[in-house]
Structure formats: C-alpha cells, structure tokens
C-alpha cells in the first residue's frame, strides 16, 4: 500500500496549496498547409487544427478527473504564421489569424499561439507584413497570441526589429484601450525563443518540431512556499534541498499527465516545462516564496540571489523527474499574474530596475508589466533592447511583455481579470534612447569565451 502520509500530502497540495498542471499544449505543424492561394491555405490551417485537436480539451478534462489533478488550460501552438503567410505575399496575413481564432473556438482551447515571426537576423518574406498586422490581429481576435523573436546568442540582436516592436506594442495597447489594453498582453518579444514552449503568450511550434506534439507546463508556487513555511530554521543549503524535492514531486505529476495525454491522443510526448507559474490567486505566488525565504518584501536587496537559488533548484529537482525537459523551465515573474508581485509593486518595493536584474537569473523576462500610457515607443524599444541583451549574453531566453496603460499614469491600475490578473502602472525611466534605437542595424553576436 502507498504510504498514507504521501497520499495525504498530495491531497493537501491540491486542495490547499494550489497544485495544478498549468497547461497541456498541443503543438501542430502547419508547414503542409502552405499554398499560394490564401483562402485555400487558411482552410487547410483551420481543418488541420480542428482535426488534430478535436479531442484535446475532452482528453484534458478526462485525465484531470481520473487523477484528481486540476488541469487549468488546454492550448495549441502552431508553426510561426510568417512562414505560412510568406507564400501569399499580396494578401494580409491577418486572414490566417482569423482562421486560427475560428479553429481555437471550434475545439474549445483558451489560447492559440503562433502568430509569430523569427527575425533575429533579419526580415524574411512574410515577416514584415506579419509584424505590421499584429495590432489589428490582437484587437480583433479573442484567442490568438503573438510573438516575435528579435535576437539570439548566435545571431545577435536585430535592432530594426527592436525599434519596430516598440511601436507595435504601443499600437496594440492603443487599439484595445477600451479593454484595459489587453492586446499588448497577448504579444511577447523574445530573445532566444524556445521552439517547444507550452506557455502563452509566447508559445509557437518551432520548425524543428515534429508534425504534432504534446508539451506540458506544470506549476506549483504555493506548494514550494508551503514546504518552506514548514521548515523554519534551515540554512540556505536546506532551502535549496527542500525546493528540489518539492519540484521533483510537482514535475512527476506533470510527466504523468504528459505521458497519459500523449497516449490517449496518439500524439508523441514532447517536453515537460519545469516551471513555477504563479496565478493571481492568493497563495500561488513566486513573490511569496522569495519572502518566505526571509525577505521583508519582494524587490528588497537579496531578491535576485533568492530568485537565482529558486530557479536553479526548481530545474535540478525537476530534471530527474521528467524524461524530456524543455520550454522555458524556471520560475516565472509575471507581475500582474502574481498576487505577491502586485502587492510589492503597489507598495513600491518592486521596481522595473529590480525586475530587470531578476530576469538575468530566472526564466522569461519582463513579463506582464503595466507602464505609463504616454511612454514613447523608443523607450519601449530601449527596454526590449536591454532585455534581449541580457538573454543574448547569458545564453538564455528573455522576453518582454509590457502593457502601455493608455490614458493612465503611475499608481493607477489595469485589470484584465482571469489568469492575466491586474496591477499598478509602474514607473519607467524617462530619458530617451531615441538616437540609439533609430540607428537600426544589428548588435553582433557576443563572444562565447573569455566569460566574465
């Protein structure tokens, strides 16, 4: 018989500590849907997604019931649409977004990611038109998420794209100003974007992926925090050990769900993303873990070190629990989606500068941060450039998902509701990087030796 302590521990994690599987994401390749006639291509895209993902939501719900684990989201990622849209250059790629939106609605998923372009070394056919269309797409669709990769460690940073994305982010917010600028919350600008990320808004199905694949993202900040709360007096080594053990258990659950979903859907298992993904629910916060370690408030000096420890321990614990690990893997720090981060931002202990430092040691980057509505596009581009540089030099993924709160100033709040949460508008450095951004060109790829 299984140890009764273990059984009760699992049930307590689910009932009281917000343990869940955050997402089952089906990656679908659309490369075989390319057609020079756009209508035909859109029909192929819609049909393929509906065919492959028809049972995704029901299977997720069945697994959730059989194992008693909440599975919060079922989602789809597709091949970057710029690659598909490139074959029909005379038409707007926005039509593909409409096809994705209809397909997502038909199969019942809550997001579909992949309205994306990879432009780290330059714009290919289809890329430019796709990026131009992002504001329109995100303001007229409900389920489509978009991402643009502007840099990699091997290619450097495409500063023309960085300049462009500052303007695109502003336009996304302006076009959805009546809905708390939600358009910008569905757009991620990446450096070193992973091809198998199951998390939105940055999920897309990379060109190196198989035809169809199941990726799973786990969660569990509440569980880690509760474990730390029980171990009051241990030193930092003890903290790291405890996080590793907890991450192992969380990830085993994700691995089980991933394998089961793969078996039931007859789709190969891709990866488990070892992530601590917070939600606005009280108790499900990464900031609270940092505070549980001994910081008075998230954002205090010591936060970066605490986060580095957390991120590393989550990976070390999780990696043995899963046969294939990938995606973003690490602790997420999306401000508006994390009750503790929201509080920290409101009380002023957490600033944009500290968040930037934190992104150097954790997965993702400046995520879900509301900035003043009058922030100029070039300042946003400057923030993107800084963040991409951190990713490029440290060979890690970084991303920017900023929401210019149109018509609002520091101290006022945005409220998206649901998983996206809400939070205060944060202060941004006002000095202009305009000349630097306007120069365009590329930041050369960094040296990979002589590291200091």
């Amino acid at each position: 018989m299984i140890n009764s302590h273990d059984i009760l521990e699992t049930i307590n994690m689910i009932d009281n500590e917000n343990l869940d599987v955050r997402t089952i994401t089906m990656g679908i390749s659309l490369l075989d849907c390319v057609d020079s006639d756009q209508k035909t291509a859109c029909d192929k895209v819609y049909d393929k997604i509906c065919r492959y993902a028809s049972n995704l939501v029901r299977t997720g719900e069945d697994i959730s019931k059989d194992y008693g684990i909440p599975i919060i989201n079922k989602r789809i990622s597709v091949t970057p649409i710029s690659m598909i849209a490139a074959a029909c250059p005379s038409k707007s790629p926005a039509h593909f977004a409409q096809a994705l939106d209809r397909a997502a609605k038909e199969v019942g998923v809550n997001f579909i990611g992949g309205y994306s372009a990879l432009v780290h070394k330059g714009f290919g056919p289809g890329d430019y038109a796709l990026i131009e269309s992002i504001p329109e797409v995100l303001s007229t669709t409900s389920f489509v998420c978009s991402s643009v990769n502007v840099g990699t460690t091997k290619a450097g940073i495409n500063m023309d794209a960085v300049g462009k994305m500052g303007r695109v982010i502003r336009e996304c917010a302006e076009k959805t100003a009546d809905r708390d600028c939600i358009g910008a919350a569905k757009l991620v600008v990446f450096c070193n974007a992973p091809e198998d990320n199951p998390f939105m808004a940055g999920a897309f199905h990379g060109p190196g992926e198989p035809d169809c694949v199941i990726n799973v993202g786990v969660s569990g900040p509440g569980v880690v925090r509760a474990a730390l709360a029980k171990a009051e007096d241990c030193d930092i080594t003890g903290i790291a050990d405890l996080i590793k053990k907890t991450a192992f258990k969380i990830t085993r659950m994700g691995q089980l769900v991933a394998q089961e979903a793969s078996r039931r859907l007859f789709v190969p298992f891709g990866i488990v993303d070892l992530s601590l993904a917070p939600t606005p629910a009280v108790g499900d916060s990464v900031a609270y873990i940092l505070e549980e370690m001994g910081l008075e408030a998230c954002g205090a000096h010591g936060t970066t070190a605490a986060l580095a420890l957390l991120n590393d321990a989550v990976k070390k614990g999780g990696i043995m629990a899963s046969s294939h690990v990938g995606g973003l893997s690490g602790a997420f720090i999306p401000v508006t989606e994390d009750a503790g981060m929201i509080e920290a931002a409101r009380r002023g202990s957490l600033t944009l500068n500290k968040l930037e430092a934190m992104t150097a040691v954790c997965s993702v980057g400046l995520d879900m941060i509301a900035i003043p509505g009058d922030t100029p596009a070039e300042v946003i581009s400057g923030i993107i450039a800084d963040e991409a540089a951190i990713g490029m030099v440290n060979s890690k993924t970084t991303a920017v998902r900023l929401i210019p709160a149109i018509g609002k100033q520091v101290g006022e709040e945005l409220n998206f509701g649901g998983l996206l949460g809400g939070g205060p508008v944060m202060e941004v450095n006002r000095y202009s990087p305009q000349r630097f951004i306007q120069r365009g060109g590329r930041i050369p790829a960094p040296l990979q030796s002589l590291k200091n």
Partner: protein
Amino acid sequence: MRAVITVLGKDMVGILARVSTICAENQVNVIEVTQSVLQDMFAMIMMVDISKSTIPFSDLADRLTELGTSMNLTIHTMHEDIFNSMHRI
C-alpha cells in the same frame, strides 16, 4: 486498475459504511483500508480495485464527491498512479 479513495472530515456514524456501500453497489472491491481518528477528525484511506466496476471511473468519483458534500466531508477518488509517480522513484 486501482484507485485511492480518501475521506477527510469530522467523525460521525456510518462514514465507512456509506462509502463501502457505494463501492459494493458498483462492483468496486475494497482491497485495504486504513483509518485514524485524531480528536474528532476522521481520516480514511481506502485502496480499491476498479477493474470490474460497472460504472465509468469519473461517475464513481462524482458519486463519492456527492456523498462527501452531503455529509460535510472531503472525499477524493484518484487513480493510484498519481501517488506512485509523485512519491516513488
């Protein structure tokens, strides 16, 4: 296939009887039971064999959850694999 039924809540007459009745009605065989009462808190863990169950697993889980709600108890019905994978290497 085996499942684990856990019952948590305030102790009262007939908890074990009513849970096992639902099992028996649906050809679910009880393999092992451990229970403890600490002060007036009741905790029972029941390992059951559901391979001959006459109803789908999700229906069994729903019925037990309903029973739990009516008796003010928390009842979970979960496939045993979840515990094996989380707690055994």
